[in-house]
């Protein structure tokens, strides 16, 4: 006989303001099988949990229903409490009276009635629950880090220094990401390369890290602790083991006019190239799309000049498969290009730049060796305009969110400009200055008060060119929207930061969710910001949302910490909410008829064939069997099985049916 206890929570006033909790408890007391029913102010508090533990012991409960908040909030809490009192944790269920009832309905009879129905459903379900026991699976102590920007680098180093192996996959020929392109960094104005390069080198040299550059992840199977990753190493056309990095080839390549990605199109590179001097690894790759040989079959100059004879034109792409226990996604972000902005000229004016282009101009290693010069004619701009929120906070044409990093880098840019061009005039058109961070507001103030940057509050409506000047039409909204027209020599747009192209496909490869803007979704916006909803896959850096360097690094260390926790044991326990194929006594053995309709339906290849043999080893019957290590408990197989031989523990036919009947039970 079932002996169920019901515990109705007020959640302070969160539930009791619209649901009459005492009535719910009274009603529940009358449900068949319920032997204990009370309501209390805070069930999750210590006294609340104690009430549950005591009731289990005193009344010998065989099941518990806590009618409180979402199970996504406190299921673990209450299951833990039950198990402390000796009740199998899977005999505890929660009725969601808060998120699904009290918070979404007005106070009234109907709401209390719905609460009662919700409790009845869970009581009927829990009566049919079975004790379940966690599943243990082994853990492969190697992490895969996808993306080698500052976030990926930090995560990889932290994991590796924790004594675990790391495989890093970077799409470009070098690691470093956006940080390697930056000139100086706010809020301290230290040189980006100077602080980044040592870490890049450390990654390359770390005994625990295997680095695959010019590579991409093309598949991921398996589950937490036991993933199998498929990586395509694109052919570099250079034998990395032999190449000495002398760079002779790059000086002789006749293809010299290819816009350099690293310099954001402001500089040129060759077809065989190292993206930048501090690249890691510092060995060239051949860009097949631009190489004369690959296009016409003639050239091979690089091969001729290479002293090490390292060029390999016929090198194929290579696919490697690796076993990993966890994944850190750190693929970063990208920015809108100026062609995105109609009213700013659809990218037609060469002296309208993106912030990243300005970084390259301001960088000592950039195409102008750190002098701010106009791309059109090489002149030093006397008047420069920075435009904030270009495409950000613009639901009409761009994105509705705030890109978060640009207010700060605009202040930095204006400051750098004033430091380099003392007599120059700089203007910043802004809507709000978002400088929340340690020493950030002080930094912006310094730009305004010390470096004489003119901040004008208003959004620019149009930019056009006239006689080599860029006419910027804005207003000063703090002057009653008075027109402000500036004849500028250069305009820098703080263009919106957006998700990387390919983020959506990557999310699908990894089976993680992503938001409407293609940023990867964290498991919980406040309390699980570095995890994804898929166990064993973590997030670091700007691929989750725009972030500056300190935040990217903090999150990366957080993700690395999570990975190291996972790797701290060689086995991990998983919730037993998985599929099982029933077994019965001979001669039937199982109601499974061996049709294997379920097998192709399973997205995790968890269903195997099992042969049932007699003593002599003769096969009597072939039935399905679920591999508990692989099954994720999605239940797809269940819906496919016509003979109802396969069922999900925790969501069995019987349980679900009982819930439905309980909802519809007439009153």
């Amino acid at each position, binding site marked *: 006989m079932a002996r169920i206890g019901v515990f109705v929570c007020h959640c302070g006033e969160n539930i009791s303001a619209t649901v009459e909790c005492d009535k719910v408890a009274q009603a529940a007391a009358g449900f068949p099988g319920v032997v204990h029913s009370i309501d209390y102010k805070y069930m999750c508090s210590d006294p609340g949990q104690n009430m549950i533990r005591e009731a289990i012991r005193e009344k010998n409960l065989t099941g518990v229903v806590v009618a409180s908040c979402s199970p996504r909030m406190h299921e673990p809490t209450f299951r833990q409490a039950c198990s402390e009192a000796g009740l199998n944790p899977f005999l505890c269920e929660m009725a969601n009276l808060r998120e699904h009832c009290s918070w*979404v*309905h007005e106070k009234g009879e109907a709401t209390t009635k*719905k609460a009662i129905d919700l409790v009845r459903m869970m009581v009927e379900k829990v009566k049919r629950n079975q004790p379940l026991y966690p599943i243990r699976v082994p853990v492969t102590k190697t992490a895969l880090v996808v993306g080698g920007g500052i976030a990926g680098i930090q995560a990889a180093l932290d994991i590796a220094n924790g004594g675990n192996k790391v495989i890093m996959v970077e799409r470009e020929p070098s690691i470093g990401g956006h940080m390697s392109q930056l000139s100086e960094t706010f809020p301290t104005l230290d040189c980006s390369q100077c602080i980044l390069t040592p870490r890049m080198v450390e990654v390359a040299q770390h005994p625990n890290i295997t680095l695959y550059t010019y590579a991409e992840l093309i598949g991921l199977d398996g589950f937490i602790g036991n993933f199998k990753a498929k990586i395509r190493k694109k052919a570099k056309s250079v034998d990395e083991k032999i190449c000495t990095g002398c760079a002779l080839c790059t000086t002789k390549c006749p293809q010299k006019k290819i816009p350099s990605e690293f310099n954001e199109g402001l500089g040129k590179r060759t077809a065989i190239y190292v993206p930048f001097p501090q690249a890691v690894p510092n060995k060239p790759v051949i860009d097949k799309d631009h190489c004369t040989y690959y296009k016409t079959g003639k050239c091979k100059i690089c091969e001729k000049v290479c002293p090490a004879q390292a060029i390999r034109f016929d090198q194929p792409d290579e696919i490697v498969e690796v076993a990993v226990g966890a994944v850190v996604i750190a693929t970063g972000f990208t920015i809108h290009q100026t062609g995105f902005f109609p009213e700013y000229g659809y990218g037609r004016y060469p002296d309208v730049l993106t912030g990243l282009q300005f970084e390259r101009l301001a960088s000592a290693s950039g195409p102008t060796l750190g002098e701010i010069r106009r791309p059109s004619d090489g002149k030093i701009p006397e008047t420069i305009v920075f435009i904030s929120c270009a495409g950000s906070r613009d639901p009409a044409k761009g994105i509705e969110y705030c890109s978060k990093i640009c207010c700060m880098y605009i202040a930095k840019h204006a400051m750098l400009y004033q430091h380099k061009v003392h007599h120059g005039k700089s203007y910043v058109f802004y809507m709000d200055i978002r400088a929340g961070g340690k020493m950030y507001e002080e930094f912006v103030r310094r730009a305004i008060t010390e470096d004489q940057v003119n901040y004008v509050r208003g959004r620019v409506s149009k930019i056009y060119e006239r006689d080599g000047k860029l006419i910027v039409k804005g207003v000063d909204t703090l002057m009653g929207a008075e027109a402000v027209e500036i004849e500028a020599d250069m305009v820098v747009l703080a263009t919106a930061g957006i998700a990387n192209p390919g983020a959506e496909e990557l999310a699908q490869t990894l*089976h993680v*969710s992503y938001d409407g803007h293609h940023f990867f979704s964290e498991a919980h916006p406040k309390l699980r910001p570095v995890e994804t909803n898929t166990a064993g896959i973590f997030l670091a850096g700007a691929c989750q949302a725009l972030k500056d360097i300190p935040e990217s690094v903090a999150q990366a260390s957080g993700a690395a910490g999570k990975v190291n926790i996972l790797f701290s044991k060689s086995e991990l326990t998983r919730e037993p909410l998985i599929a099982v194929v029933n077994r019965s006594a001979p001669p039937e053995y199982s109601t499974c008829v061996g049709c294997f309709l379920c097998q192709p339906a399973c997205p995790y290849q968890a269903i195997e064939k099992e042969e049932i043999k007699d003593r002599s080893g003769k096969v009597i019957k072939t039935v399905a069997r679920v591999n508990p290590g692989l099954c994720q408990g*999605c*239940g797809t197989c269940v*819906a496919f099985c016509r003979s109802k031989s396969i069922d999900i523990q925790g969501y069995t036919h019987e349980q679900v*049916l009982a819930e439905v009947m309980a*909802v519809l039970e007439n009153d």
Partner: protein
Amino acid sequence: MENKIFEPKIVAFVCNWCTYAGADLTGTSRIKYAPNVKIVRFPCTGRIDFMLLLKAFGEGADGIIVSGCHPNDCHYTSGNFHARRRWISFRSLLDFLGIDTGRITFSWVSAAEGAKWAALVNDTVSRIKELGPYTDYEKVARYYEEEVNHE
């Protein structure tokens, strides 16, 4: 009794990862909606076996909502595709049983779409109110019993 406003009984079959969480967000965002709908949680819409929907109609439900993750966002890769595919063949069964397909709302609500969940519930409730109570349930119940006995 006759004058009582018709308050339809609606069961929602939702997946744990997207729609259940989306409905949680509706709560966290304090968006109000009609109390007629009660949620039954599933690991994935792929788990939802359509005989269960028939059972629900047979037991007197006036309407049903099935909602899970958006295509390509299924926590389990592809469960929602299977559900979708099965739904297509299920439709003809509904026609056969004379159940207005308007009584079933098939939708996607992600964990971030709290407002969408509220709108979905409200739309469904008002549509079912227009359709009126479902009365043919004995016929469905009979079919369901036969089908189960047959197996």
